[in-house]
């Protein structure tokens, strides 16, 4: 599988926190509950499905998944 990277658009994110619930390894929440990707957004091997699952459940279409 190719290396995946995720990014949360901070303007689109409204803090639904679905990504954090579905893929806690890949996302962090700030003090207001808004999400951002963990670290540099590199998806560790084995967590690819969770990255796509988080994207598919974001009500604001705020998550990008790209192949490096």
């Amino acid at each position, binding site marked *: 599988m190719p290396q995946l990277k995720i990014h949360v658009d901070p303007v689109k994110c409204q*803090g*639904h926190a679905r990504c*954090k619930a579905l893929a806690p390894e890949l996302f962090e*929440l700030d003090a*207001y*509950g808004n999400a951002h990707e963990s670290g540099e957004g590199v998806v560790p091997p084995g967590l690819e499905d969770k990255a796509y699952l988080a994207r598919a459940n974001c*009500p*604001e279409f705020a998550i990008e998944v790209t192949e490096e």
Partner: protein
Amino acid sequence: MSEDASPLPQHPPVTDWINDFDHTDPKWTANPFPIWDEMRSTSPVVHTNRFLGCYMPTTYEAVRAIANDTEHFSSRRVLVRDERPEIKNNAAPPITSDPPVHKPAKQLLLPPFTPAAVAKLEPRMRAICNELIDEFINDGRCDAAARYTKHVPVRTIAHMLGIPEKDGDLFIKWIHAILELGIKNESALLQAVEEMTDYFSAEIEKRKTKPTDDLISYLMNAKLPNGAPLEDSHVTGSLRLLLIAGIDTTWSAIGASLWHLATTPDDCRRLVAEPSLLPIAIEELLRAYSPVTMAREVMKETVVSGCPVKPGNMVLLSFPTANRDPAVFPDADKVVLDRKENRHAAFGLGIHRCVGSNLARMEMTVAIEEWLKRIPEFRLDPDGEVTWSQGTVRGPRQLPMLF
């Protein structure tokens, strides 16, 4: 102006849902889903001359477009009602705020409602649920709406605000007056708002001499971005909002979920057998039985999904209808407990995403989990009647169960 003596003036029955819809019609209250399907298959936006003129988007796309368009649609009025009185300074920020006022008001409320913050309430929540179940489990029957689903959010929000749980009946009375009677009865709404304001003003005064570590003191000590403290009217407005938004809604969501499980034994057995499925199942129940419909006021002429929209009208912003759109949700009319892709809009979309969504999810999950642990088999009482609330928040208000 003369007062109408009836607390709930009757609207003429609806015969044309496309050109004359009414979300207070008894048919809508009993079973809105076929009505929404009919509207959606006709047009992405429909209009009624009732309520002094009101649009309703019927597709996910149209609902999303309006929720994200704060230039043409204002939140200064968030209820579709018979009257449209002058805007007074009794608003409930941030739900009634537009940019740029909205963001600082919302940011004040967010930290106590993050997933990490609400997780701290979970042990008390579980205890509340079990205390309630203890009161009726030996009877073999109960009205789950009156004895369980209502009290879970009332006691939780009272716990958070630092006010007595025994005042819960007052809260329920005010919320009924505002969200249901208030659609057609201005004086009932105003009286409830005044009573709530007086109640919270007294709580604020108490804390001025004797600070506490609850949400009321948190708001009293909060600062706006310019360093200024909140005016008392801002604090009471926010408290009214938390009470109104935090009780009826969660009561409805828990009740509708139990109603579904009581009437769909296969789903109930599956959740009992696979409790780890519960968080995903809760999302699906939120989608299928979303309780909350919001509103906007059209400020400038625009076009939504090809339909012209004109100022002077309200918008009934039905997240529940968006969540039943088959263009976005395959088998939208079926509850699929393990639905994988679920961008449901039950907590709204855009900047007004429900502040309490993480709390509501936790309350729903714990309330259903504890019920299923204690009462894994239950059904509707065939001799009783299920009734649903009218208007803005939809959920069972009588839910007679046998177990």
